[in-house]
């Protein structure tokens, strides 16, 4: 009797472990714990009741895009065309890493997924993870002219492209109109970085117990100004634009203290939107996603990002995000039909604007009408006249260059080494990194 009970208990344990393993692989390794969903990932089926004969397309997006992804899936599912889109949302902080694991899994459960930048699409392309979309686009007769630029970044030498651009971003300068009005100052439009630093210094003071800051330039893109001048981290020595921009950062963060210091901006709880929204910061350099994320009690305006001397006004940086199809998808044609709906149709692009206030790469009149209706910020028109340079290089080792550049410039901004030392160290490490790649 004891042996029978023991056998039964052991069998229950073994089968439950085996069942959990197969459940994990069935959800493409989406959770490290047993079961289909973890706390970081949620899945929702479309609003229409899925017909059991429907083709299921799994859509993966990150939490910041959740509302847009779910709305687009719901709209597509409402068409009841034999395809049901199931959305899977992964927390933004974990998204890039988990996506790599999902893509490497080759389980066939990964159909459509969002990719943050052209460089990441390139990485997936180089590893043979993505389906070629050019044939599908050719079949549907889609006019690719409006998205030629973003498509170039995700194409190979034969002209095949591997991602459909979804939204594009653009770095801008945001300013607190009320503070500027109170001081009787002109709004900071078309500044150089020199002018920006002078103005930020002038506008940093303490009054009535409140500290006012001239501006806030976040410390997570330490090459912003140079990139807008077309100088990337792969540029030949000497990287004059990068050095010039670094001196302005040093001025803001260290000399004038017109910007929050690296220590404060590195704190885990630092939220740039909250800081600017508190109303005591005159200017903020950030991306056009702020039109959606910024909630303020005051009126704010938008202007072109400052530029280095000699750089064309309106020059800035940004990048497109993409939706791609896994080459292991069981239904690539249907997946492409959904992507084309999401990224190029009037309905799909309008949903993007409604849910994110981001500018779709494939600009439709309907989407722009929605954008004009929703985003009534003075200066928003600069978004559309901006000369946008790619925010990152697309070399496979660019992420490593970002890391070493950040390490060296941080030491300069913390006054632990000189500018010359920082760049000498960077050049040496860059050579080593490229050699090791």
């Amino acid at each position: 009797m004891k042996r029978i009970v023991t056998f039964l208990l052991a069998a229950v344990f073994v089968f439950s472990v085996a069942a959990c393993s197969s459940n994990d692989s069935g959800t493409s390794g989406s959770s490290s714990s047993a079961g289909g969903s973890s706390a970081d990932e949620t899945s929702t089926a479309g609003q229409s009741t899925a017909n059991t004969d429907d083709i299921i397309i799994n859509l993966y997006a990150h939490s910041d895009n959740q509302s847009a992804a779910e709305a687009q899936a719901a709209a597509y599912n409402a068409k009841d065309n034999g395809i049901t889109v199931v959305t899977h949302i992964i927390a933004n902080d974990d998204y890039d890493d988990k996506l790599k694991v999902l893509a490497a899994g080759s389980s066939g459960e990964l159909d459509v997924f969002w990719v943050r930048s052209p460089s990441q699409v390139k990485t997936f392309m180089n590893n043979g993870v993505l389906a070629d979309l050019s044939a599908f686009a050719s079949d549907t007769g889609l006019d690719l002219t409006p998205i030629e630029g973003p498509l170039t970044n995700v194409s190979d030498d034969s002209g095949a492209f591997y991602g459909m651009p979804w939204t594009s971003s653009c770095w801008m300068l945001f300013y607190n109109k009320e503070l500027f009005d109170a001081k009787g100052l002109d709004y900071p439009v078309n500044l150089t970085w020199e002018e920006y630093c002078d103005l930020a210094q002038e506008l940093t003071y303490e009054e009535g117990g409140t500290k006012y800051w001239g501006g806030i330039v976040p410390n997570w893109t330490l090459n912003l100004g140079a990139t807008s001048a077309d100088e990337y981290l792969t540029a030949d020595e000497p990287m004059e634009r990068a050095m010039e921009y670094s001196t302005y950062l040093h001025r803001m963060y260290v000399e004038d203290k017109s910007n929050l210091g690296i220590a404060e901006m590195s704190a885990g709880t630092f939220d740039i939107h909250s800081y600017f929204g508190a109303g005591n910061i005159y200017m903020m350099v950030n991306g056009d996603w702020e039109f959606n994320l910024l909630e303020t009690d005051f009126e704010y305006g938008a202007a072109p990002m400052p530029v280095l001397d000699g750089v064309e006004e309106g020059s800035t940086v940004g990048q497109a995000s993409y939706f791609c199809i896994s080459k292991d998808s069981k239904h690539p044609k249907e997946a492409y039909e959904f992507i084309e709906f999401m990224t190029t149709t009037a309905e799909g692009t309008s949903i993007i604007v409604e849910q994110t206030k981001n500018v779709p790469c494939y600009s439709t009149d309907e989407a722009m009408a929605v954008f004009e209706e929703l985003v009534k910020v003075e200066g928003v028109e600069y978004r559309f006249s901006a000369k946008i340079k790619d925010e990152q290089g697309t070399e496979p080792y660019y992420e490593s260059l970002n890391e070493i550049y950040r390490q060296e410039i941080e030491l300069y901004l913390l006054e632990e080494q000189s500018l010359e030392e920082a760049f000498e160290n960077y050049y040496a490490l860059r050579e080593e990194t490229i050699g090791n790649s």
Partner: protein
Amino acid sequence: MADLAAKTKNKMSKSAKKEALTGYLFLLPNFIGFLIFIAIPIFTGFFISFTDYTGFGTANFVAFDNYAKMFGDSQFKAALQNNLFYTLTSVPLTLLVSLLLALLLNKSFFGSGFFKTVYFFPNLTSMVAIGCVAMLLFQPQSGPINQLLLSLGVPAESLPEWFFSTKTAMITVVIVVVWKQAGYYMILFTGGLKSIPPQLYEAAKMDGANGWKTFWNVTWPMLSPTTFMCTILCIIGSFQVFDIINVTTEGGPGRSTMVLVFRIYREAFRSGKMGYASAIAYFLFVIILIVTIIQWQGQKKWVNE
């Protein structure tokens, strides 16, 4: 008679076999889990370390290229150096603090149970949460710790930068980690202290030994098995430090808090170099193995069984 003895022996042997089988069946689920989630990945990782695997597609054999690349990689060297520094500071500090706490709280007094709980609490808390709070506490300009030092008369220009200076960042990490894990080792030392026969203390008292002599000649030798175990656990844990670094400094400022596991994570998941990351992981495994073997050999000299 001999037949009866043989039959009895067989019966006992059969019964022992049944007991053993029952035991194995109970172990089987755990063993399957160990095999699938630990043993197989470990062996697979070893083979991956000899390839250029990126996580996608096929892996090409590159022999010892990854291992050779390690020693020319300044990021890896910095991580190794920092990790050694971290181990050499955090382990002695942790053991010292936890032993002191255990000695103080070993005596029964009003509230000793409460204090044991309080000192153990940090161990129950997620390191991520502790890291986030530590970033606020150790803010150089507005953090409460520097504000307190300022109020105690420390000049503003002498205030430490804590996480934001290459000179103090790693020490700050050590302080936070020691605070978190001292409670756990305090419990282990408390258990060790309780196992020391009281007659030894009585004998020492009768011989006129003072507090220090009692500690050095009775407590410390009798505690050596516990100390040995705590040292091994602490050293192994120190080479695996990752979460506090990831939440607070991310290896900075510069490379001053870059450690080996953080380097492995960067190479594997940010740079997509699974093969190279596996090589670093196996190098780390070898370091820990060598240190542990040295300790096991050394225990014969100083650990009282």
